[in-house]
């Protein structure tokens, strides 16, 4: 049994990987797709097509709206029907490009064959540019643009690439299936990532509840003959797949508060991202599809499906037999960090990893009781915070104390709320408090910046200085 795991906190929910045996299926094309312009962290993309334009699969339809932003490509071929706001999964309007599907015609230059291409391009800059042009974003949850992550700020040095195959969230099996069915592509993708970062070693972290994947990837690495890539079996523990926790587990280094992984020499990419990188670099295929699990004990038709980005969730559910009668909650993502869906007509995004159905019994929150000061929330917190203390300050609106007790370090993994025996909605309150504290920190930074700029003007006029002192 593997001992590799992160050092603080964590919980052990039942892994419930009931769709693990379901091979990846191709979802039929929907009548229309809706491509949200903001489906990555950073600035929303800007449309470069107009209503009425004919587009092909893989053709760019929106360009980055800033440095931290990403291209969006048409995931289908057809006609642009509208560029308009459409309710997302929480019902909030989001700008979407609607494309009516006509046939399945791919843009030129995309290699749609299954041939494995193992020869890596020489030029690292060209590789990163290809990744950028393909609109690749992190598929582990945060959807951070990958090319930005691969361009570390000057002065920082990458020492290891970690491929995150932990899939520590219960129920999710899409990464597992990708590792099993697209293991070669993932390993080549990992090799590309390690080459881009200067030939650093690459560790593929997989939890021990996926022994087939560990064996398969080991076999693939040996077969393809990559010396710098290795598999690290991880102890089962949530939230192992969280970036900071995974770096701690693999490299025994803790990323400081507010710092980036690169500050300790680490770059983490998800299994799905490694596959997308392979597709982008070796096959010229932009990120237009992804694999998600459709699962839940109450859902009879378990599946792992490859879907085109922008496919409405309701279409996927209908294809697999419709809503189960006793499901009361549908979640996009896993049960620990996923978002509850209120609008089933919402479109899937690049980073959608699962559609999970939960029954009332599974998800109903019991009434809140008194805190019994058992400290289980503090034991569970992987960031070493004390949720019982944070919620007390949050209820008092005590922002200063919240900041002193590092509420801004919270990764919102949900371990505190999960483990609280009194069923106190710890994370609900802490999440709000974190938002308020981050706002205060930003306001302070902005004020400090404004102050230095105000103090900057070179020709100092004594009276103005006097004025500013007041």
């Amino acid at each position, binding site marked *: 049994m593997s001992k590799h795991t992160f050092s*603080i906190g964590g*919980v052990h*929910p039942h892994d419930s990987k009931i769709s693990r045996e379901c091979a990846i299926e191709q979802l039929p094309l929907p009548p229309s797709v809706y491509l949200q312009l903001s489906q990555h962290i950073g600035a929303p993309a800007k449309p470069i097509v107009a209503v009425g334009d004919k587009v092909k699969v893989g053709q760019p339809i929106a360009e980055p709206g800033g440095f931290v932003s990403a291209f969006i490509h048409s995931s289908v071929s057809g006609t642009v029907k509208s560029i308009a706001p459409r309710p997302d999964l929480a019902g909030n309007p989001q700008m979407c490009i609607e494309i009516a599907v006509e046939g399945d015609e791919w843009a030129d230059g995309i290699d749609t064959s299954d041939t494995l291409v193992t020869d890596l391009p020489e030029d690292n800059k060209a590789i990163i540019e290809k990744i950028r042009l393909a609109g690749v974003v992190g598929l582990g949850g945060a959807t951070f643009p990958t090319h930005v992550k691969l361009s570390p700020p000057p002065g920082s040095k990458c020492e290891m690439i970690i491929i995150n195959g932990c899939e520590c969230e*219960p129920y999710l099996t899409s990464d597992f299936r990708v590792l099993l069915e697209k293991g070669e592509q993932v390993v080549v993708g990992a090799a590309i990532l390690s080459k881009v970062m200067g030939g650093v070693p690459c560790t593929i972290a997989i939890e021990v509840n996926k022994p087939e994947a560990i064996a398969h990837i080991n076999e693939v690495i040996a077969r393809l003959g990559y010396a710098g890539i290795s598999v690290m079996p991880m102890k089962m523990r949530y939230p192992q797949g969280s970036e*900071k926790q995974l770096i*701690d587990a693999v490299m025994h280094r*803790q*990323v*400081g*508060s507010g*710092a980036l992984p690169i500050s300790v020499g680490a770059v983490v990419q998800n299994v799905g991202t490694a596959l997308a990188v392979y597709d982008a670099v070796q096959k010229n295929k932009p990120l237009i599809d992804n694999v998600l699990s459709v699962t839940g004990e109450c859902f009879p038709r378990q599946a792992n499906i490859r879907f085109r980005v922008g496919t409405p969730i309701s279409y996927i559910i209908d294809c697999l037999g419709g*809503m189960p009668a006793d499901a*009361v*909650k*549908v*979640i996009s993502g896993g*049960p*620990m*960090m*996923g*978002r*509850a*869906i*209120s609008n*089933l007509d919402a479109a899937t995004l690049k980073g959608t990893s699962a559609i*999970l159905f*939960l029954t*009332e019994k*599974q*998800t109903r*929150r*019991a009434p809140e*009781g*008194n*805190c*019994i*000061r*058992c*400290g*289980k929330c*503090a034991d569970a917190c*992987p*960031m*070493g*915070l*004390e949720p*019982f203390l944070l919620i007390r300050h949050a209820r008092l609106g005590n922002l200063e104390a919240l900041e002193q007790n*590092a509420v801004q*370090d919270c990764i*919102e993994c*949900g371990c505190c*709320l*999960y*483990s609280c*025996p*009194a*069923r106190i909605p710890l*994370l*609900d309150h802490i*999440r709000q408090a974190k938002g308020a504290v981050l706002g205060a920190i930003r306001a302070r930074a902005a004020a400090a910046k404004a102050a230095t700029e105000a103090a900057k003007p070179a020709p100092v006029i004594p009276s103005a200085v006097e004025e500013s002192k007041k």
Partner: protein
Amino acid sequence: MSKLLVSPSPHIHSKDSTRSLMLDVVIALIPAAICSFVFYGWREVLLMAVSVASCVLLEWAVTRFMLKKPSTIGDFSAVITGMLLALNLPYTTPLWVVVTGAVVAIGVAKLTFGGIGQNIWNPALVGRVFLLVSFPTYMTTWGAPAGVVDAVSGPTPLGAIQEGLLSGASVQDLTAAYNYKDLLFANLGGSAGEACALALLAGFVYLCIRKVIKPWITLSIFATVALTALIFWGINPDRFTGPLFNLLTGGLILGACFMATDYVTSPMSLWGGVVFGVGIGFLTMMIRYFGSYPEGVSFAILIMNSVVPLLNMWFHQKKFGRK
């Protein structure tokens, strides 16, 4: 389309609840309860029944009629208080005294502060200490287990030694009357809970395995008691009792395993817990050696309960990626 439930993550919850944790403590106390029944008979069963019933009933009545809140008896914490109170009393205690203890424990020490989770001091201990200072006659006449010792009642080992010391005897002569096998398996006069050390330790191990409590508080109490006793006993074995004797007598095991580890009244952090345990161990020994009461565990725990908020303020767990 049916309505969908929407709430923030996480969407699932561990099976632990206040009730399940408290139920584990009740289970952990059962071996000790059974032992006390074996040694002291039906009278002990009656004592425990009255104690538990009055605690539960009182909590129900007060929450229902005075606080006008949903009753909290379903969380089993009142049952634990009742069991611990009973295990802390001599089996000969009159039932009206037991009820008085329950009123103080639940009514004064627990519900006055706002019920479960809000109290500063361990309710069962407050009840016990109230009875100890109010009705010392009942509380220090300890029945010896039926059929084991001829005497119907007598002082506890610690009480006997204190009296003996006052009359000029040496500790060595006094402790010669006890052997450690008896102390472990309960053949001595004392409160029901002091009766069987092994049964209490079994309950403690169960709680640790079930991860209801962490062992650090208890272990630091044991270590401090042993170390303090070793030092004093090493200096003057005629005046001071030794480590093993102190570990096995006077309800130390009951206090260290079940009272000091009470969630509500113990520190949250690991090091806070260790300091808390060291404080209890040291104070216990000081009271035993130099105090006017032969026994100090209850007082030591209550005193350390009072500094828990400070310990929680001073000791925090290590935060990820911060110095």
